């Protein structure tokens, strides 16, 4: 049986386009130090380190875990780099959980950074995730491949561009309460609709910024965590599901095969909910930090997470259901539409969910947030992670 695990500290640094005053390793070091201070621990207390690192071409240093061993406090300790594209941070947090839950390590640091401000060609890097025989020549990137999902969702449920815009408006409005967020703005639906089209139906303001920054969490065993005498975030459930590279295989109407619905995320959520004893996610989860770099992603995710019926995420959005004072606030931090430091976007979701149940989320705190869920997605919408955290065991 796995041991109980808690998140006992978090550290984030300001997300912005370019962090030119720090090197990549310095960003890692900053987040690691802040998380250790928050946990009231020192490096001596850390038994192992997990490094959250996404495509290295985004900042142009190959095999980058080499560079950051010292910055991450991993000298003399086991280190593991985790990379599942956009899901990297979610997978890294789960790897940290597995370290502690296994009983082999008592206290683990999970840390990562993104520095895509060092290249103007982030979408070229994300084009190079396509294989060369059949798909590389078609100019795909993160935006166009997500447009396929939007097209499917619009076709199946009648979702409109104006409804998607509401997700962007709420996210960046929430970001006004988050000092770490990159884009903090009071946009209107009209602003989103007027922003220039990138890949139909996704417009500039349906898309995330290119962000740099860093994030870390400290995870500890039940024995360690209980001895700390402070609020911690208990990991109540984890789930992960992966799916095929071939997007065209998810577009043919076979069962468990729908690009627009994210059946894989639903499966990952079912695993996590079962561990956490959650049977009515729409009522038992009080706040969600959803990895949604594009507006459509949050819509599809909420439906896959069982927060509402299929096709209902947008109609409920129009009623304020997901607002910070709504029935189930989503992305009170602003989420990935406000800040998208790819290597740690998923880790930031976990950190933000932990802050909510610890009651330490400041201006963005959701009242009565006892249980929170954090998700991440990566690849061509292939890797899905779900983590449930709670203020009690």
């Amino acid at each position, binding site marked *: 049986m796995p041991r109980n695990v808690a998140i006992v500290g978090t550290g984030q640094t300001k997300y912005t386009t370019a962090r030119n005053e720090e090197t990549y390793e310095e960003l890692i070091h900053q987040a690691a130090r802040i998380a250790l201070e928050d946990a009231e621990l020192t490096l001596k207390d850390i038994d192992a380190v997990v490094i959250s690192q996404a495509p290295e*071409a985004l900042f142009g240093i190959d095999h980058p875990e080499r560079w950051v061993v010292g910055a991450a406090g991993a000298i003399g300790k086991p280190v593991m780099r985790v990379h599942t594209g956009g899901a990297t941070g979610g997978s890294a947090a789960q790897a940290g959980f597995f370290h502690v839950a296994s009983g082999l390590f008592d206290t683990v640091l999970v840390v990562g950074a993104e520095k895509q401000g060092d290249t103007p060609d982030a979408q070229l890097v994300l084009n190079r995730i396509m294989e060369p025989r059949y798909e590389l020549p078609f*100019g795909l990137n993160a935006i166009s491949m997500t447009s*396929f999902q939007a*097209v*499917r969702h619009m076709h199946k449920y009648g979702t409109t561009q104006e409804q998607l815009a509401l997700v962007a408006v709420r996210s960046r409005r929430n970001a006004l309460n988050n000092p770490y967020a990159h884009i903090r703005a009071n946009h209107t639906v009209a602003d989103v609709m007027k922003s220039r089209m990138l*890949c*139909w139906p996704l417009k500039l303001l349906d898309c995330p910024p290119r962000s740099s920054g860093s994030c870390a969490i400290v995870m500890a065993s039940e024995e360690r965590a209980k001895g700390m005498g402070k609020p911690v975030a208990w990991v109540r459930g984890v789930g992960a599901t992966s799916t095929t590279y071939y*997007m065209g*295989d998810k577009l043919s109407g076979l069962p468990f095969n729908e690009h627009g619905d994210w059946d894989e995320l639903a499966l990952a959520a079912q695993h996590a909910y079962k561990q956490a004893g959650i049977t009515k996610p729409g009522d038992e989860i009080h706040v969600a930090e959803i990895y949604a770099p594009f507006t459509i992603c949050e819509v599809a995710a909420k439906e896959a997470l069982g927060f509402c019926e299929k096709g209902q995420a947008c109609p409920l959005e129009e009623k304020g259901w997901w607002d910070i004072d709504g029935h189930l606030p989503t992305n009170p931090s602003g989420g990935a539409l406000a800040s998208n430091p790819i290597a740690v976007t998923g880790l930031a979701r976990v950190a933000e969910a932990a802050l909510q149940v610890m009651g330490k989320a400041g201006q963005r705190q959701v009242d009565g947030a006892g249980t929170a869920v954090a998700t991440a997605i990566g690849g061509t919408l292939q890797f899905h992670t779900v983590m449930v955290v709670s203020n009690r065991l």
Partner: protein
Amino acid sequence: MAEELVFIPGRWDITYNYAAGKVSSKFFAELRDNKRLMGIKCSRCGRVMMPPRGFCERCFAPAGEWVEVGPEGTIQAFTITVEKFEGNPDPPFAVAYVQLDGADTAMLNYVRGLDFSDLNRAAESLRVGTRVRVVYKEQRAGEVTDFEYELV
């Protein structure tokens, strides 16, 4: 005095010669020489995979016989890229995942011959369920861009 920050220019420029393997090589030869699109059947479940590959992920079984698919099919998803991205063709251009008749999965390619002056109208013309046909290029090099789709 403001502190000066140093920037070091860099560029990754690496040559590859990707071996496409026997299965894909046959697909490309059929496309170039015979203007045929060939899918491949799973040896166990029999689903016809497009584009063809050496195995079925679902059954974890090797691919079996070749089957000709098309020449028409149905759009399952599409997008119209309007923004210029480094390394991409000049916009606007449309691509679609099309389930060719006789195939069980959808394959990506450009959709040609569209009027992009009204984007929403162009998108409407590509909506899921729209029928398209395969058009082969005159000069074929044995690569995936030897064919395109156009509206029926």
